[in-house]
């Protein structure tokens, strides 16, 4: 190991410890010893309060409900696409995955527009609920529905990955034994999918209980509070004074997520029936005369979950005012002009979100490559440990990380005496922590496909570690690193959960502005912002698609 490598290793250990490990430990410390000495009274008091318990119950109801819906939709769709001869699979998969890529607050807002009393679309058809009534999506039912739709792609991806591990010969042996498709599904395929189902279920449960955008838009108006929105309301209402209490709530939420992940792990371990095979099963079972019917229903479903809400979103963004009927003559782009030029907070938010997401993507992309090399090729224990530590800020609900960041950065930084609290940089620090693992994973996957002798040849030629990084390792891993950067950018750009707790005046993000416009009833401006973020998201997905075949398989979820 040369000096350069030592320096890089040291710098990375410091960086990852500071952004990922320290805040989480600080939060844990706050929970067990808020005043510096062991004291569980605040945790106990918080968790015996009826408001907390009610929020816990609501979190479980919507989390489990949403997960079940996601499980049914995601599994059904994966089986349909992988096993039958349904047509236009690529288009179907893309449409089905899309809700995962679009920010939950945007989706929730779009659905509200589509089904509310002011729905320009339903209004035009004369189907809108009467004015003055509450939006039918507000409340647990709507939250479960949208959580289910938002997370169904997670289950789909897990099950599809599981199906790729089901060897063709196992299915063909059952076929040769005379089993009908439904029998094979029940007796061979589903039992082999156990771990994949567990993985998808665990992921979507943890993601659902940590979701902020959906319960914020659909829960707060009806007074239906989950743990995440409870934290938000407390902090927004009372400020850092309630930190010990929200830290206790955050720890409870983290515990819930960890239980979810542990159950998932245990279930996967228990019967890991993975079988190695070269050819995955693609039986192409014929739907026969049912095919047109099945295809039509699937596309109607896609229309319902994609076209309808987003058409309503666009409609809201171009009506002159809420409640006005939309016609060709009345159509206006003034709300776009408003959010892009006139409304200062929105204008700032565009800049902030672009810069924060771009910087986070760039920094994490640069860090991920040497991190992956040191963890996977050098087998550095410290970095391997930090790879696990870096999973937590992402796997645990975003509010948990946000609380941890406030705890660490509320006081000015020691030595340099610089305060990041109430600036965009606290959001930036949180993004680095939260999305590090998103940048790291694709690079790790890419590294697994690189022949190590490519680095060794450079080493043999006399190149130092830094020189090798620059001339060999970065260029070789560039596609994977860029894929990671795109995922980081997309996720950060659409993010609300973390910034909802960390923003301050002048440090707004797009998610925050959308949320506050919605809360203050300015739906048209919110719609314009939502449309613009969706356009930016789709454009970036296009860039990812253009990277095409140079990426390791499975790095970009929307690519087959």
């Amino acid at each position, binding site marked *: 190991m*040369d000096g350069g490598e030592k320096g890089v290793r040291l710098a990375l250990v410091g960086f990852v410890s500071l952004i990922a490990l320290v805040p989480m430990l600080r939060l844990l410390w706050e929970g067990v010893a808020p005043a510096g000495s062991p004291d569980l009274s605040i945790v106990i008091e918080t968790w015996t309060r009826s408001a907390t318990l009610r929020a816990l119950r609501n979190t479980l109801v919507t989390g489990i409900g949403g997960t079940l819906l996601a499980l049914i939709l995601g599994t059904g769709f994966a089986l349909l696409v992988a096993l039958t001869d349904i047509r236009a699979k690529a288009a179907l998969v893309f449409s089905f995955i899309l809700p995962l890529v679009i920010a939950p607050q945007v989706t929730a807002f779009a659905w509200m527009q589509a089904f509310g009393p002011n729905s320009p679309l339903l209004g035009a058809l004369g189907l809108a609920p009467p004015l003055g009534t509450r939006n039918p999506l507000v409340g647990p039912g709507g939250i479960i529905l949208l959580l289910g739709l938002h997370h169904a792609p997670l289950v789909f991806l897990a099950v599809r990955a599981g199906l790729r591990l089901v060897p063709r010969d196992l299915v063909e042996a059952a076929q040769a034994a005379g089993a009908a498709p439904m029998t094979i599904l029940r007796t061979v395929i589903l039992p082999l999918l156990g771990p994949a189902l567990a993985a998808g279920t665990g992921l979507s449960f943890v993601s659902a209980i940590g979701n902020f955008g959906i319960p914020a838009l659909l829960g707060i108006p009806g007074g239906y509070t989950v743990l995440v929105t409870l934290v938000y309301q407390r902090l927004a209402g009372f400020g850092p004074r309630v930190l010990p209490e929200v830290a206790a709530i955050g720890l409870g939420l983290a515990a819930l997520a960890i239980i979810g992940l542990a159950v998932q792990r245990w279930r996967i371990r228990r019967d890991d029936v993975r079988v190695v095979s070269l050819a995955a099963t693609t039986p192409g079972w014929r739907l026969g005369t049912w095919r047109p019917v099945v295809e039509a229903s699937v596309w109607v479903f896609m229309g319902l979950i994609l076209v309808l809400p987003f058409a309503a979103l666009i409609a809201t963004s171009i009506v002159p005012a809420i409640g006005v009927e939309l016609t060709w003559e009345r159509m206006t782009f003034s709300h776009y002009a408003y959010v892009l030029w006139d409304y200062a907070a929105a204008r700032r938010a565009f800049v902030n979100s672009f810069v924060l997401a771009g910087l986070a993507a760039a920094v994490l992309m640069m860090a991920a490559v040497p991190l992956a090399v040191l963890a996977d090729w050098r087998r550095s224990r410290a970095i391997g440990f930090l790879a696990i530590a870096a999973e937590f800020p992402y796997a645990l609900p975003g509010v948990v990380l946000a609380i941890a960041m406030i705890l660490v950065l509320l006081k000015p930084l020691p030595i340099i005496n610089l305060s990041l609290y109430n600036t965009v940089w606290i959001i930036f620090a949180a993004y680095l922590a939260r999305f590090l693992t998103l940048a790291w994973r694709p690079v790790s996957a890419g590294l697994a496909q690189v*022949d190590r002798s490519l680095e*060794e*040849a*450079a080493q*043999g*030629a*006399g190149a130092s570690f830094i020189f090798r990084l620059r001339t060999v390792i970065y260029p070789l891993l560039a596609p994977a690193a860029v894929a990671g950067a795109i995922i980081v950018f997309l996720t950060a750009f659409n993010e609300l959960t973390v910034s909802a707790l960390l923003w301050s005046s002048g440090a707004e993000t797009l998610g925050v502005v959308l949320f506050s416009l919605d809360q203050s009833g300015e739906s048209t401006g919110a719609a314009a912002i939502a449309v613009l973020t969706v356009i930016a998201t789709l454009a970036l997905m296009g860039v990812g698609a253009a990277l095409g075949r140079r990426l390791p398989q499975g790095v970009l979820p929307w690519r087959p």
Partner: protein
Amino acid sequence: MATVSLATVSRRFAAGSAAVDAVDLDVRHGEFLAVLGPSGSGKTTLLRLVAGFERPDAGRITIGDRIVADGPLFVPPEARRIGMVFQSYALWPHMDVRRNVGYPLAVQGITGAAYADRVAKALNAVGLTGYETRRPAELSGGQRQRVALARCLVMEPAVVLLDEPLANLDVHLRALLQAEFTAFHRATGATMIYVTHDQTEALGLADRVAVMDQGRIVQLASPEELYRAPLTPMVARFVGRGAVIPAIVHTVHNGRADVEVLGRRAQLRVAPDQATGAALVCLRPEDLAVGTNGPVARVARKAFQGSHVAIEARLDGAVLPMHLGPDQAAALGDTVGIDIRDGWVIPARD
């Protein structure tokens, strides 16, 4: 140019026996040494120890007059100035041929005319002038290995390590590139360590051959000696596919032994200090001939080889490889008499 020497060098991977087990090896200045052994015998690990990609758990490695590994002392590969040719060629896919070959120069900060000149010379030496702007993906397997060779050449290394450089090539290209390795060795005078599991490569190319088995060097000798006088049954079987057969040594005299083998008496070559009593002997096809008064064996396999017919004759569980000339005929299941003309009493057991 330099010597390479290993003193009781070991490398043990977690949970397993040592991949390289207390190896002593002295490679002479400018020598072409082949390391020959079955897959998994530790050849690659040995090479990587010399290159510096692995760190020995024990022992000392010296290159020239510099100790590169000894206890806490460890010189990293980038500071060893060793040329390495990989089985996978290890060409960087994002660089063209010129940049691949010129990489060691770029590392040293050499640019401009000196860079262009040395790259051109190296490419010329391997016959790839005109391919400068091609990407590795646009080259054939043989051309890729030549680029790797040129990259090694441009460094003007004192020691060159090659790990099964021909294993991914077809038979025709192998013969061609073998000739090129010999030329490379002659042109540079570098000390070369060439790892292979193919005995014809090892015997054909090297000045000396080290045979490895289970992490140890079991014999280090010239190709002729290795073939004629294998030290252990493993070497006898692995090199030249000799038959190893139990025998009893009665007397030893003047490099010849009177041996009872396959129920007959025969005069075989022995080491001078060979003890009498039970032993193993190595019989090769050229030691055996079809005779009239020898032991009788049955023809179990038969393969036409052009100049001769190779047969396998079986007798009391022993399998004897033999060659039949064009005028000799035998069908499967026939019996033939065997005449033992020569052979070697193996000094050691495995």
